[in-house]
């Protein structure tokens, strides 16, 4: 009889309680092992924190000489320009990739090929792409624009393809039923359904490209990243903090513009 029971234990999400405890103990040991392997000692950590506080002290107040300031503004402009150009270029390249990666529109082999390209673009961090492109095309904005364009493919095409896969088949069939060709079906039955979303994706990607454009200069692909790396290398910490603030400002403005535009379009 249930009413005589004196104990109750919560059912566990694991196979049983032993597994649960083994899992917890294993996790703790594992993390402990990780820390010991990296040679992290509390002393070193503490020293770092103290030095960090000192560093913050050296960073405030943010200041820049006139030459530094002008250079910063110029390179910020370069970052923003790169992000704009790369967004347009990237989306133009992404449109065919997007269509060819929609499972409901193309044959399987084409789908898998394009999905793979998208996956490569998504999986490689923009700095990895940038450092390779710098070697291929030389230091500067060309490598930067191409990096951001390439990264745009992975993002834009993937989400665009997913939208294409979600479209209302009825509208496509209606066009097919009138005797339209495959291209007609796509132009009249598919495109009108996904245009607002495509614009939204583009604007959102632009926002991401601005953020990325501020860092790829660290490996020489143009923009403000070059300047901030130099500032840190030359121990110009007050200048570095100025640049950081400027980057944050630019990123926030970009985010705001992007958010407002998307709200209006979608």
């Amino acid at each position, binding site marked *: 009889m249930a009413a005589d029971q004196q104990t109750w234990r919560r059912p566990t999400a694991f196979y049983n309680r032993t597994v649960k405890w083994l899992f917890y103990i294993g996790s703790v040991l594992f*993390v402990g092992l990780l820390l010991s392997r990296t040679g992290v000692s509390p002393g070193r950590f503490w020293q770092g924190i103290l030095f960090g506080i000192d560093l913050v002290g050296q960073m405030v107040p943010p200041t820049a000489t006139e030459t530094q300031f002008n250079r910063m503004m110029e390179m910020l402009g370069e970052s923003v320009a790169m992000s704009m150009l790369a967004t347009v270029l990237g989306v133009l390249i992404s449109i065919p990739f997007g269509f060819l990666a929609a499972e409901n529109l193309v044959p399987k082999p084409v789908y898998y090929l394009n999905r793979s390209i998208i996956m490569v673009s998504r999986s490689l961090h923009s700095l990895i792409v940038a450092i390779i492109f710098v070697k291929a095309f030389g230091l500067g904005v060309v490598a930067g624009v191409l990096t951001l364009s390439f990264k745009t493919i992975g993002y834009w095409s993937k989400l665009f393809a997913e939208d294409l896969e979600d479209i209302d088949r009825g509208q496509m069939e209606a066009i097919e039923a009138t005797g339209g060709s495959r291209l007609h079906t796509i132009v009249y039955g598919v495109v009108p359904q996904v245009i607002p979303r495509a614009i939204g994706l583009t604007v959102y990607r632009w926002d991401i490209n601005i953020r990325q454009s501020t860092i790829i200069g660290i490996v020489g692909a143009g923009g403000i990243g070059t300047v901030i790396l130099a500032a840190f290398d030359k121990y110009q910490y007050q200048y570095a903090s100025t640049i950081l603030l400027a980057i944050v400002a630019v990123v926030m403005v970009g985010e705001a513009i992007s958010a407002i535009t998307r709200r209006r379009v979608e």
Partner: protein
Amino acid sequence: MATGSLQEWQRYDRRTRIGRYLMILASLIILAISWVSLELDFGYLLSAPANLADLFVRMYPPDWGYTTTIVDPMIQTINIAIVGTIVAVIIAFPVAFLSAKNTTPNKATYVLGKFIISFSRSVNGIIWGLITVIMFGPGALAGMVAVGLRAIGFVAKLLGEEIEEIATGSVEGVRATGAGTFLVFLYGIFPQIKPALVGISIYRWDINVRISTVIGFVGAGGIGVHLFEAIETFAWRTVLLILIAILGVVIVSEALSAYLRAKVR
């Protein structure tokens, strides 16, 4: 529509159309300005695919002999992501409660919570890396801290949004039994956000793996150190091997993350 315009059909009304044209025009102008200010050489851009193809020819075949050398740094990369995530989640947990309207003690703590979140989020992981390498010296420790600092804002933001969504009735129900503040949290609030906490942490770990692959460019440990070295010495076949390894690790962690997140729902 008025009877006079029977013959015409327009997809959008006048104002919308003018608005659209203006938007397109503005975009084109901005684009042109960008183009000019960057002083891009069009011919150079056109030759890009050829240059790239040339590079890939030099990369092939990958230097498989180097595999054993990169196992350790690859593991270190994943470790940086794991420890960075743990650190971030521990710090982000209280921050999330500060940043949620329904749990923050007062206006000042709310602003503080929001500030920590945007501060952490607006500085890129690699820039955090630049700073932490100065603090802790080159190595994995700097990487862990950088990855963690960057992730705090992400985790706290998503978790805070989850906290704002909790059912207040359940909290009221537990309070009415006479439970103390901490037990109200433990029974009324925590069970409601637990799945989100686990899901967000796993998701962030997956993102952190990607960041950990490049954090070595600024000296903060992981596979990035080796990739940087190989590129600087033009060891292209090694570069390809490392790229393949990175692709593999990133794709596997993404799949693992998706699988685990589907399980905790």
